[in-house]
């Protein structure tokens, strides 16, 4: 007869309640791991979306995401002529608010040239921008659907296509429009600032500035080589895609990432301590029964098996409850929660090891107990 099973069955309600409690805790740990992953991936999506090789930005900046960058709109033509560059496109980024059906939407507006690099990644539904004005490709996270009409600045845009999981590092959903529309929007949204600048004569180029030029290279061209060529223009700087991703994950979300990372580790430690405590208490409550077992002649392995099996059962049921819970609710989080099988398995392994170690603690107490304890009172 399996003593672990019989004991659990005897106090099933309590055991299951403990499992569910542990499951909730492990669910939170999994959620944190998923949020951490989501943050890192989200930070990179915007930079990965145009699928390009080189970013050309304002000299001595690490733009356009980590630092502000403004370059003349005609830069693109110069870049496109460099040997090794296959195509290049101008691009602008700005955060803007729009009102839709009484809701304020905070959006990350990306202006691009539809026939050149810089456009959205493969679409969820609808089509890319086909006209030169007033069309939008919006991310699903914005809540907009095909055909929605959104007032932006002084114009009204129509949603013609949708992307998925395309948000900036702050979690704002991306919307794509033509470069011309985006530049006009920039001007519309901050007329006073622009007017002040123009009065000062600070921006002689007027409205035709962009935040970056993105370039796709020919198959055999070296990104570093082309970047070197670009840097000869004193007012420009070039960042390879690889370097851009490093900047994004290291500087832009680094603090948030470390914050969540630290919190996740703390949660893991707390869970480990709680699992250890539960299993230890479970054993301590049974010490008298264990003494009785010893007294009636049960060998150590019977007792050890009982403790270890119960610890494992607790760990497994708790873990699966937690995993099931998170897999079912992860899409309701406001920001992306990414659970890769390897993270889930790693946590499973950690839970397994913690259960094993803490049952070791219980086993130690159980093996030490004097069979004579069963006799007293």
């Amino acid at each position, binding site marked *: *007869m399996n003593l672990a099973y*019989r004991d659990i069955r*005897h106090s099933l309600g309590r055991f299951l309640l403990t499992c569910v409690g542990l499951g909730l805790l492990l669910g939170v740990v999994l959620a944190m791991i998923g949020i951490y992953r989501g943050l890192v991936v989200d930070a990179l999506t915007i930079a990965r979306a145009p699928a390009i090789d080189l970013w050309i930005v304002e000299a001595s900046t690490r733009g356009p995401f980590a630092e502000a960058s403004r370059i003349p709109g005609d830069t693109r033509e110069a870049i496109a002529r460099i040997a090794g560059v296959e195509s290049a496109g101008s691009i602008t980024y700005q955060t803007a608010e729009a009102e839709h059906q009484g809701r304020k939407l905070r959006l990350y507006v990306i202006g691009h040239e539809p026939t050149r690099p810089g456009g959205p990644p493969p679409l969820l539904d609808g089509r890319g921008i086909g006209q030169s004005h007033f069309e939008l490709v919006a991310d699903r996270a914005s809540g907009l659907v095909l055909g929605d009409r959104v007032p932006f600045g002084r114009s009204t845009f129509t949603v013609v296509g949708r992307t998925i999981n395309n948000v900036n590092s702050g979690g704002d959903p991306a919307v794509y429009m033509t470069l011309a529309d985006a530049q006009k929007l920039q001007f519309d949204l901050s007329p006073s600032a622009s007017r002040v600048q123009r009065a000062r004569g600070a921006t002689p180029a007027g409205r035709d500035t962009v935040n970056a030029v993105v370039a796709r290279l020919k198959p055999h061209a070296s990104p570093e080589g082309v970047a070197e060529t670009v840097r000869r223009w004193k007012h420009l700087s070039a960042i390879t895609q690889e370097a851009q991703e490093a900047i994004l994950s290291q500087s832009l979300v680094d603090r948030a990432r470390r914050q969540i990372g630290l919190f996740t580790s703390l949660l893991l430690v707390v869970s480990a301590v709680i699992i250890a405590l539960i299993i230890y208490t479970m054993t301590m409550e049974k010490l008298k*029964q264990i003494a009785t077992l010893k007294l*009636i*002649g*049960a060998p150590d392995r019977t007792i050890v098996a009982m403790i270890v099996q119960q610890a494992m059962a607790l760990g497994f049921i708790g873990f699966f409850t937690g995993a099931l819970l998170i897999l079912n609710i992860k899409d309701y989080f406001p920001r992306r929660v990414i659970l890769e099988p390897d993270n889930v398995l790693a946590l499973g392994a950690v839970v397994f090891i913690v259960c094993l170690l803490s049952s070791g603690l219980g086993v130690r107490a159980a093996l030490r107990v004097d069979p004579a304890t*069963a*006799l*007293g009172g």
Partner: protein
Amino acid sequence: MSEAIAQLVRVDRISKHFGEGETRVDALREVSLEVHPREVVALLGPSGSGKTTLLNVIGCILDASSGSMDLDGERVIENGSWQRRDLRKLRLDKIGFIFQSHNLLPFLDATDNIAIVLQLAGADSKAARRRALELLDYLEVGNRGTSMPATLSGGEAQRVAIARALANKPRIILADEPTAALDSKRAGIVMDLLRKLANEQNASIIAVTHDEKIFDRFDRMFYLRDGRLESS
């Protein structure tokens, strides 16, 4: 049967002390006694006199500081050290315990509380349950076979515990205040039962008791005072 191996329990000048120096307690001082098959004997004495300690030494739960002990003709303690390593096996084969509080495993029903000792001794689960039911019938609690210990009355639980003590047909049965939790009628029934066992299984029964109502049920009584045996 020769006189030399006629005793089932032979305790020879066993001493046991706890602690050292200032805190030293001499719980047993050179205690010697012999118990024969079919004998039901009592261990009496004031609180703290060493009754439980003596029972634990005989039950191979506690080691002795000095002296020797034989159980069923086998040397178990010599000059205060164990002569056998697998004491749990020895207990499983030869010794049955009846506790003051019944100490049944709360998560097994009455039958399985008995069957587990049979299984530990190597019986397969079907045979174990069959024999467990027989034992419950024998102790007239056969109708409570599937009850959990928490639902048994004190007397029923005690009888299930006795059935467990008997499961492997031990030759030596040790009981620490077996009737303390029972009224005098039930105490009498338990004592009758122990007597019947001693006779039918050729066993020795050693019971610690304070219970004057049952003094007349014993063949012999040993009085302990301050760890010393006074008379028998």
